[in-house]
Structure formats: structure tokens, C-alpha cells
């Protein structure tokens, strides 16, 4: 087992362990609310896998910490100790600490720090064998010419068919051994159960051996013994360079982490774990595609005009398969939003404890799938909104009682599909936005001229303005003035929108709408003068031709048209984007009614060319951000068409109206 061969598994180990930690945390939280014994088992299993993995992959600090946690869990599992708040708290802190260790492992820093060492001691104290433990790991000077192995089999190891003799023979094959048997726990002959092991060993192994090689010997018995492997500090001659190179991880435990995680971080392009059903679906589709292609091939060989209909049918089939294939390939990047939701039970628990509020968290639609990129970036905005909801939205139990509500506030996170989008709603039943405070603040900041006639939704919009924060006291939770505007910007960067609805006294709802994928959109191609624009299909309500008399001009230069009983503004795209040779008369062109953030407008274009799938190319990456444009795409003839950002266009329009 060389370093290189094992390093390639680190990524998987990290991912699995982090998932394990998530599972541990979730189970701990469930236990906190009075869960059953099965939860303890699942926590134990997660800790156990992390311990095993970290020992195998050469992260002894992590293994030592999880070992203590595991021992404590073992006592709980065996019923030797009742689970209580203090244990749950200790375990949650262990989970946090391990997350930190994984972070450091990935960036190649030493794993152990003051926090982890003190936590380890606390765990050990809780287990009941505080003091100098065999698994003490500390940073040591780098020069090591061998290893000191502390090996104490558990009583049941012999009966399990594992013989320390065999293990020591394997060790002897690695290098020079000095074996010292520890007989301190040997019972009297009468008390002896000869099938149980009461011996321990301190083994000095000299030679250029990697920690992994040693850990490998004990791989199958790591659950059945207490084991520590520490570098033997060379007292006399420094090791030869060759030795140094091979036993590079022999330095401090942290240095071992460095070597490997450097390799790991060099390819941090990320990975996705894909369900086998999705892969099978893809293989099926490729099969279909091959069949269709073979069919079309036949036409080419023996072309006969009478079979044109069949050829068309074949081409239609090809188009259908290509589309399904595309959807399936996109599906590979789709992950359930549950992975983001999972962090909230802990967050809510910690926050509500800190603020003395009682919060019931409801998670709905965890299985809703979202593009991995979107998923990774939506976490922070959601955390911010949840924090805000608990800090500012939900009231203390006393206040809730005073307003006739139950003591416990409800915070609901819900994800679902709507049209071509994913909608995430954060709903609280708290006090709602403080209209007066927001208007006062907006007046003070000069964002509005007067508070008269501003609707609740418009008040909501105000909090998205940069630098807006009404928190009387700036807490470390929220209210640092870098708030909602950052949330909105993050979401908009993902091609999404944030809307707010507030019901004074009854709570607030934030609605985040996100695109399913960032890579491809379905659009309608519209001609405007010499240019061609793509209007995202999801935003289109209807396309209509209007007679000139249907248009009402309003003072200030705006134009309105009546649509389904309501007046909507018209945006003349050629004016908006400065296109030449465009049609000027309403009756000569078409009006596409589009909707975003609950607002509808009519886009006036020359004509519709047809439906088209657009592979989105970022405008920012290639040029710069343009208001009202979300990106560009390349058409079949090689020309470039811009993709209209409907929400941005509507905002642009209302800003212009307000100005």
C-alpha cells in the first residue's frame, strides 16, 4: 500500500465521512427530541465507520477522537449509561470538531488543535478512563525511524478467530521488532477464562515502514483492540533520505494529513454520486439512440423517395431520443435539496436555545432535485433567511402568548417544482415585517420620499436594498447590514428570484425561485429588427397580436394594454435594447406576455421565429453583466442571440417608471 494508491481514496472517504457526520448530527438531534435506541445504533455506526476510515487512511488524530466518542456511544448502546443532554451536547460538539478536522485535512493542515484535544479528554473523562490514554497523539518532531505501536486486544478478540501472534508475525515481516508484553491485566489462574485475551503489547518497529502498512496489519481487528501507532523519534542518527521519503507521513500526524490532502485538493473539481438507476436509464437511452441511428443508416444506403415518411419518422425518433438523453444527462447533476435542508435542524436548535425562543422546524419536499451547482450555492442564502426568521421573525414565547399564539413558533422550509423552476419557501408564523421601522429606516436612508401609500409588499422590497438593516441591536446572528441584498444577489446570480410576502402579526414568507438547471433553457426565438432574442419559455404566459387602439398611453411615457381584465405595461424591446429596423406599430408585431416575480408585462417584438433550446453561455464570463440579459446562446447558423432576463427586465422597467 503506497501513499499514492491510498490518496486517491481520500476524496471518497471525506465525502462519505461528511455524510456520516450529517447522519450522526441528524440522529443526535432526533435523539434530543426523544428518539429510540435505533438512533443510538445509527450514530454508533457512523462514528465507527469514520474511526475505521480515518485510521486506515492515516488520520490518527481523527481516529483517536472518534475512538473516544465511539467508546462513549458503546456504553450508551450497551445500556451502561443513559443518554442525556450533556452527552448529546458533547457528541454534537464532536461532530463539529470532526467537520473542522475534515476541512483541515482537505486543505492539508494539521488535524489536531486545542479544541480537538480538549474534546478528546472530555470524551475520555465521560467514558471513565481519563488521564493518559494509549491513544495520545501529539505533534512530534519530524525525524522518525520507526514506530511505537501500543496494541491491546479486547477480551473477545481471540474467540473471534484473530490471533495477535499472527498480527505480530505480519509486523515482523515489515521491520525489526522489539516486543514487550504487558501482563498488568492478567488475572489469576482461577479467574482466567483462557479464551479471553488479557495481554497487551508495546511494540517498537524499526525500519522504513509507512503508517498505512502498519495500520493495514491491524485493519481487520481495529474494532477488537485499542491501537495506537506513533512515530518513534530517532534518538541517535537521523534517518537516511531514502527512509525519509518513504516514511514521509511518519512525521507528525498532521504532516501525514498534509501529504495526502495536497494530492486530494489538487483535483477538487468535485464529484457527484449518481444512483445506479439513473446510469441504467442512460444506457437504455444510448441503446435506443444506436437503434435509431442504424435505422437511419439503412435509408442512406437504399434511399427511395417512397419511404420519405419513414425517414421523417426516424428523424423524429432521433430528436425525441436526443432530448430524453439530454434530460437524463442533466438529471445526473440533480441532487435532492435534502442535503441542504439537513443542516437546518441543528442550526434551528442552536439558535433557538441561544435566543430563548421555541421553534418547530418543518421540512417539506426534501426530495426535490436541484442542479448540484445551484444546490451548493443556495445554502448560504437559505441559512441567512432561516437565521433572520428566527432572530427577527419569530417572537419569544412571552410575546407569542401576549398576541394569542402558541408558545412554539413554526418555521417551514418547503421545496417544490413549479413550471420549469424549483421553488423554495421559508415560511414563519412570527410577527411579520415591522412596517413602521422599515419605513422609518428607508426614509432615513433616503430610499423613499414618504411612507404614504406604500403597500406591504413594497415595504418588503425595501429590505432587499443594500445596507438596509433595522435590527436595533446588531447581534452575531443577523443584522449586520449585509443582509437581504446579498441574499438577493446570490439568488439572482443563480438565475433565480427572491420574493417576500408579509402578513403583519402572522408571519413572513420568502419565496426563492430557482432554475432547474443553469446549462440549458427552453426558449422562444423572437426577432426584433436585425436582432434575435431568446425569451425563456417558462416565463411566457401568452403571445397576442394587439390592435393599435388596445394600447393606452399614460402620462410619463408608459404604455399599457389590457390583458385578462388588467392593465399591463408594454416593454418595446427595440427601445429597451436599441435595435434598428424594428417595427414601430403595435399592430405590425406581436406582444409576448411574460411573468416574473408575480408581475406581468408585454414584450413587443417583430415576430416569433420558433421554439428553441438554448445552451446558455455566460455573458459575464465573456463580456460583462448587462441588465435585462441573462446570457447568450449560439444559434444554428452560428450567430449569437441574447437571452432575456425577464425578472431583470421587469425590475429595470419599474425602476425607470419610478425615476
Amino acid at each position, binding site marked *: 500500500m503506497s501513499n499514492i494508491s491510498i490518496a486517491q481514496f481520500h476524496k471518497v472517504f471525506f465525502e462519505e465521512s461528511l455524510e456520516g457526520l450529517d447522519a450522526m448530527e441528524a440522529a443526535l438531534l432526533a435523539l434530543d427530541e426523544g428518539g429510540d435506541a435505533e438512533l443510538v445504533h445509527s450514530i454508533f455506526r457512523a462514528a465507527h465507520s469514520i474511526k475505521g476510515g480515518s485510521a486506515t487512511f492515516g488520520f490518527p488524530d481523527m481516529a483517536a477522537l472518534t475512538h473516544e466518542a465511539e467508546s462513549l456511544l458503546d456504553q450508551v448502546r450497551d445500556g451502561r449509561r443513559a443518554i442525556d443532554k450533556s452527552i448529546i451536547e458533547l457528541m454534537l460538539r464532536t461532530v463539529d470538531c470532526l467537520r473542522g478536522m475534515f476541512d483541515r485535512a482537505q486543505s492539508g493542515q494539521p488535524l489536531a488543535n486545542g479544541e480537538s484535544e480538549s474534546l478528546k479528554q472530555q470524551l475520555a473523562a465521560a467514558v471513565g478512563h481519563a488521564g493518559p490514554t494509549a491513544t495520545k497523539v501529539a505533534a512530534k518532531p519530524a525525524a522518525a525511524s520507526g514506530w511505537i505501536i501500543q496494541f491491546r486486544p479486547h477480551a473477545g478478540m481471540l474467540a473471534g478467530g484473530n490471533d495477535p501472534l499472527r498480527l505480530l508475525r505480519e509486523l515482523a515481516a515489515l521491520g525489526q521488532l522489539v*516486543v514487550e*508484553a504487558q501482563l498488568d491485566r492478567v488475572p489469576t*489462574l482461577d479467574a482466567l477464562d*483462557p479464551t479471553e485475551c488479557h*495481554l497487551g503489547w508495546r511494540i517498537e518497529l524499526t525500519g522504513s515502514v509507512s503508517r498505512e502498512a502498519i495500520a493495514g496489519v491491524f485493519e481487520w481487528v481495529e474494532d477488537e483492540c485499542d491501537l495506537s501507532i506513533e512515530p518513534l523519534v530517532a534518538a541517535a542518527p537521523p534517518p537516511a533520505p531514502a527512509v525519509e521519503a518513504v516514511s514521509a507521513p511518519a512525521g507528525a500526524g498532521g504532516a501525514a494529513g498534509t501529504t495526502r490532502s495536497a494530492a486530494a485538493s489538487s483535483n477538487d473539481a468535485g464529484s457527484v454520486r449518481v444512483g445506479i438507476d439513473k446510469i441504467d436509464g442512460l444506457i437504455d437511452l444510448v441503446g435506443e439512440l444506436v437503434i435509431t441511428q442504424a435505422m437511419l443508416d439503412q435509408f442512406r444506403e437504399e434511399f427511395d423517395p417512397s419511404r420519405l415518411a419513414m425517414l421523417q419518422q426516424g428523424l423524429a425518433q432521433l430528436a425525441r431520443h436526443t432530448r430524453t438523453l439530454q434530460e437524463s444527462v442533466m438529471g445526473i447533476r440533480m441532487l435532492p435539496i435534502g442535503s441542504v435542508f439537513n443542516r437546518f435542524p441543528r442550526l434551528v436548535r442552536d439558535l433557538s436555545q441561544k435566543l430563548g425562543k421555541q421553534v418547530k422546524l418543518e421540512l417539506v419536499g426534501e426530495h426535490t432535485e436541484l442542479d448540484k451547482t445551484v444546490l451548493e450555492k443556495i445554502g448560504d442564502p437559505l441559512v441567512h433567511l432561516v437565521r433572520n426568521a428566527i432572530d427577527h421573525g419569530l417572537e419569544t414565547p412571552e410575546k407569542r402568548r401576549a398576541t394569542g399564539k402558541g408558545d412554539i413558533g413554526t418555521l417551514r422550509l418547503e421545496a417544490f417544482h413549479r413550471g420549469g423552476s424549483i421553488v423554495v419557501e421559508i415560511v414563519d408564523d412570527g410577527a411579520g415585517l415591522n412596517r413602521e421601522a422599515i419605513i422609518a429606516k428607508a426614509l432615513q436612508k433616503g430610499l423613499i420620499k414618504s411612507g404614504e401609500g406604500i403597500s406591504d409588499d413594497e415595504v418588503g422590497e425595501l429590505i432587499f436594498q443594500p445596507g438596509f438593516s433595522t435590527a436595533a441591536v446588531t447581534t452575531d446572528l443577523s443584522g449586520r447590514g449585509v443582509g437581504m441584498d446579498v441574499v438577493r444577489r446570490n439568488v439572482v446570480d443563480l438565475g433565480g428570484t427572491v420574493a417576500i410576502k408579509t402578513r403583519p402579526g402572522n408571519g413572513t414568507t420568502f419565496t426563492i425561485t430557482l432554475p432547474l438547471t443553469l446549462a440549458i433553457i427552453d426558449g422562444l426565438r423572437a426577432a426584433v429588427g436585425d436582432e434575435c432574442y431568446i425569451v425563456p419559455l417558462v416565463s411566457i404566459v401568452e403571445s397576442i397580436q394587439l390592435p393599435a387602439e388596445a394600447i393606452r398611453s399614460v402620462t410619463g411615457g408608459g404604455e399599457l394594454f389590457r390583458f385578462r381584465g388588467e392593465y399591463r405595461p408594454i416593454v418595446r424591446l427595440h427601445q429597451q435594447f436599441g435595435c434598428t429596423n424594428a417595427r414601430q406599430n403595435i399592430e405590425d408585431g406581436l406582444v409576448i406576455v411574460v411573468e416574473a416575480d408575480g408581475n406581468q408585462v408585454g414584450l413587443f417584438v417583430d415576430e416569433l421565429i420558433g421554439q428553441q433550446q438554448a445552451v446558455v453561455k455566460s455573458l459575464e464570463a465573456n463580456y460583462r453583466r448587462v441588465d435585462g440579459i441573462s446570457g447568450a446562446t449560439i444559434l444554428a447558423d452560428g450567430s449569437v442571440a441574447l437571452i432575456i432576463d425577464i425578472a431583470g427586465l421587469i425590475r429595470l422597467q419599474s425602476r425607470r417608471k419610478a425615476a
Partner: protein
Amino acid sequence: MGSKNKSDAAKGPVRVGMPSDFRIAEVTDMHRQLSAALDVSEIVLDGGAVERVDTAALQLLVVFQHEARKRGNAVQWASASAPLHDAASQLGLAEVLTLPAKQPA
């Protein structure tokens, strides 16, 4: 196996022989024999026939030696096979077991 009956043993040194396959499956039996042997002041251990041995067996011998020393029994080795020697030194137990010099192979 080689152990004498307890009543006979009172007269002279008791000899405890070890089986050729002296591993965990045999230790319970040997435990009984060795415990019984402690009634006699002089005990002779014969490990000459041992071909296979494991940690459980050696641990039993260690515990037995401890016990015998504590009680003041005299324990001697008649012989110890090479596999027994090797295993004991591998586990760092050769000295504790006071094994005799290695037999020529």
C-alpha cells in the same frame, strides 16, 4: 494427554504434556489440567510435541507460571518445541515463560 492423575501426582513431580495442536480449542482442557497440577509442589511442563500454538495457549502458560510462582510451586520445562519457542519470543513472552534453551531443529 500427558497429565497424571491427581492422586498419583502427590507422590512425585507431576508432568503436564501439551498437545501438538495447542490452540484456543484446547485451552479450556489445558486450563483444567494445569489448575489441577498446582496441587503438586513440583511440576514439569512438556512442550516438546507442540507443533501449532497460539496466543491463547501462551497466555494460559503465562498465567499458570504466575500462579505457580505465587504459590511457590516449582515449575520446570522438560522440553519446548521450536514452534513454541518462536511463538513465545514473537509475543515477547519467552522470558516470562522461562523456556529452556531451544532444541536443535
